[in-house]
């Protein structure tokens, strides 16, 4: 309910009352002054007539100097309420007044000159008459106030009548509608009754219009509610999928900043970066090869044929923590216009364990478990590809066949464990001596093979010297003593045979065979030295 003073019919009545009061005040005011002026003028006219009435008699009284007659005249005039004072003056002699003294210098005095009755040019006296202003004013004001009051009463009555009519025909029915309207609640059917006698007019159509509006509103609210319930169920399901998914899910915007992410995603991040709230941060910051990833994302956004791409990526990790690998699926999110939006959905699985397992499996498959050098099977494959590479580039490759000297004795004297230690030591020495892309292989037992790429095509130019230098270095490295423990030192040494691709052969078997020959040559020559295969060596030595 509204406060009384805010109700419409009160406002209308108040407006009319205020208007009426102003009009009444103004018109009464104007009327009052008009009336006062009118009545005063009327009084003056009366006084003038009064003077004219007694003029003749006064003339005669002055003419014959008859004071009795003059007094009669003055007394007669004074009987009139309008007259305050009278003075009758004869130039020849007397001057009579009504007792209030001379009126010579007063304002508003009605004066009339009295002339000789038989000689119109000779002035013989003067009649002065002072109007009773107080009486006139009082009269005038009384009358004017009366009139003004009547006018005001009339105006107020009219105003009351108008506001009553307005209330009956307009605000009261409106009030009914408003009160009913305030009870209206969305979704509840309420019919507003059309006020009596208003079926055809604007109030009637207002009520009908409101009814129509309410029912259409209710219908749309109902359908809205249904839709919302369905949406809620769907949303619940989707939320469950999103929240409970084992895969990390996130959306990134055009600047690769995280828009949203599910708990699984946050968990993956928490493992590697200790970030508990990743929203708003940059996705690519967390990966190795950040720049490539950014370029790749840019490509996805602008390439219409590229919608979903899978990548295995390595997350950057904090110091002293494990590597973390993730399998990522990047998909463009299409907006309603079917144009590729800037948003990209990222699905992320933690594949660290799998990757690590794969890596270690691959390592175990290719490497010798003891020395961590390549095993023979991997070594053969690698050497072949080394030769292919040399062949493609018209360069050389060098095969070094290394056989430890007196290794059997180490096993016999110090035991197999010591022998293993020596083999491990050999692996370390080889790996420290050769470059990363040189291939160091444990061929079997105490036999090792190393394959090196030489970027000079002609053995005669510089290659022979370089190979000789390499052979010398190798022999020197291998011949250093090995401290098995504080008090046990083992003397080591190796015989090395060297063959060169393509000068000594074009296939692996041939090159290994000739390197073996060269190695035997070294053994025969007294061990702990290297030999480069000489093609002119006698053929009988080949076997």
């Amino acid at each position, binding site marked *: 309910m509204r406060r009384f003073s805010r109700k419409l019919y009160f406002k209308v009545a108040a407006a009319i009352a205020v208007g009426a009061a102003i009009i009444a005040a103004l018109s009464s005011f104007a009327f009052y002054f008009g009336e006062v002026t009118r009545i005063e003028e009327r009084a003056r006219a009366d006084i003038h007539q009064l003077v004219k009435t007694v003029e003749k*008699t006064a003339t*005669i009284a002055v*003419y*014959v*100097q*008859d*004071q*009795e*007659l003059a007094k*009669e005249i003055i007394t007669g005039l004074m009987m009139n309420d309008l007259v305050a004072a009278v003075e009758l003056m004869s130039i020849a002699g007397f001057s009579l007044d009504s007792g209030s003294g001379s009126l010579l210098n007063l304002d508003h005095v009605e004066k009339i000159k009295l002339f000789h*009755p*038989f*000689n119109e040019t000779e002035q013989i006296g003067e009649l002065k008459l002072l109007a009773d202003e107080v009486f006139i004013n009082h009269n005038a004001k009384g009358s004017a106030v009366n009139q003004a009051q009547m006018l005001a009463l009339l105006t107020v009555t009219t105003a009351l009548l108008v506001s009553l009519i307005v209330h009956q025909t307009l605000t009261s029915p409106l009030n009914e509608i408003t009160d009913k309207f305030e009870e209206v609640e969305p979704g509840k059917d309420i019919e507003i009754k059309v006020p009596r006698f208003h079926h055809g007019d604007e109030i009637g159509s207002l009520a009908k219009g409101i009814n129509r509006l309410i029912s259409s509103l209710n219908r749309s609210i109902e359908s809205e509610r249904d839709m919302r319930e369905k949406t809620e169920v769907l949303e619940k399901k989707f939320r469950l999928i999103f929240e409970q998914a084992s895969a990390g899910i996130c959306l990134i915007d055009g600047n690769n900043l995280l828009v949203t992410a599910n708990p699984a995603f946050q968990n993956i991040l928490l493992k590697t970066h200790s970030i508990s709230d990743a929203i708003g941060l940059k996705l690519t910051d967390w990966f190795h090869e950040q720049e490539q990833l950014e370029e790749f994302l840019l490509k996805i956004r602008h390439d219409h044929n590229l919608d979903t791409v899978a990548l295995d990526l390595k997350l950057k990790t904090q110091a002293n923590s494990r590597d973390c690998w993730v399998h990522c699926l990047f998909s463009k999110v299409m907006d309603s216009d079917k144009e590729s939006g800037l948003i990209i959905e990222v699905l992320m699985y933690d594949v660290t364990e799998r990757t690590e397992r794969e890596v270690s499996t691959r390592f175990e498959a290719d490497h010798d478990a003891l020395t961590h050098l390549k095993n023979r099977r991997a070594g053969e494959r690698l050497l072949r590809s080394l030769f292919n590479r040399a062949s493609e580039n018209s360069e050389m490759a060098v095969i070094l066949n290394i056989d430890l000297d007196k290794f059997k004795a180490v096993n016999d004297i110090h035991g197999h464990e010591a022998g293993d230690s020596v083999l491990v030591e050999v692996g370390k020495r080889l790996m420290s001596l050769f470059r990363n892309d040189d291939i160091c292989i444990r061929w079997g037992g105490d036999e090792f093979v190393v394959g090196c790429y030489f970027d000079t095509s002609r053995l005669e130019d510089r290659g022979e010297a370089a190979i000789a230098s390499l052979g010398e270095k190798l022999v020197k490295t291998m011949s250093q003593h090995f401290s098995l423990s504080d008090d046990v030192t083992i003397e080591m040494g190796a015989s090395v045979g060297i063959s060169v691709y393509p000068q000594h052969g074009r296939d692996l078997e041939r090159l290994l065979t000739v390197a073996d020959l060269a190695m035997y040559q070294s053994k025969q020559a007294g061990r702990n030295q290297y030999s480069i295969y000489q093609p002119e060596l006698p053929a009988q030595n080949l076997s």
Partner: protein
Amino acid sequence: MKCLMVLLTLISLLPTVVAEELLVVVSESSRVESLTKGEVVDLFMGRYVTFPNGDKAKVFDLASKSRTKGQFYKLLVNRTEAQVNAYWARLLFSGRSVPPEEADSPEALITQIKQTDLAIGYISSQDLTEGLKVVYRFEAF
């Protein structure tokens, strides 16, 4: 020319037409020698009761309905006798001023004037006799 002749004839006839003149007279023994018209008016209309020289005046009038009286007031104040009577009627109320004493006939009036030095009255010029003094003469009718 003929018109002029007629006019001249009329003019020559005038003195005979103005046979009767109105005269204001006093007794021969009065100290008053002559009066102006205004002074005559003031005396006959009751303004003053004395002559200008201070002598008390006794004003005589003719009886009503006299032809001479009508003429006199017509000439003096341009009023009819009835108007003059009405004038006096107003003044009678206060009792201070009294109208002139009326003589029954011109002869009686002349007799009254002759009897007292203070009397004043009017007569037709035809009635002018010994013992009277003309103090004002109405010039033309």
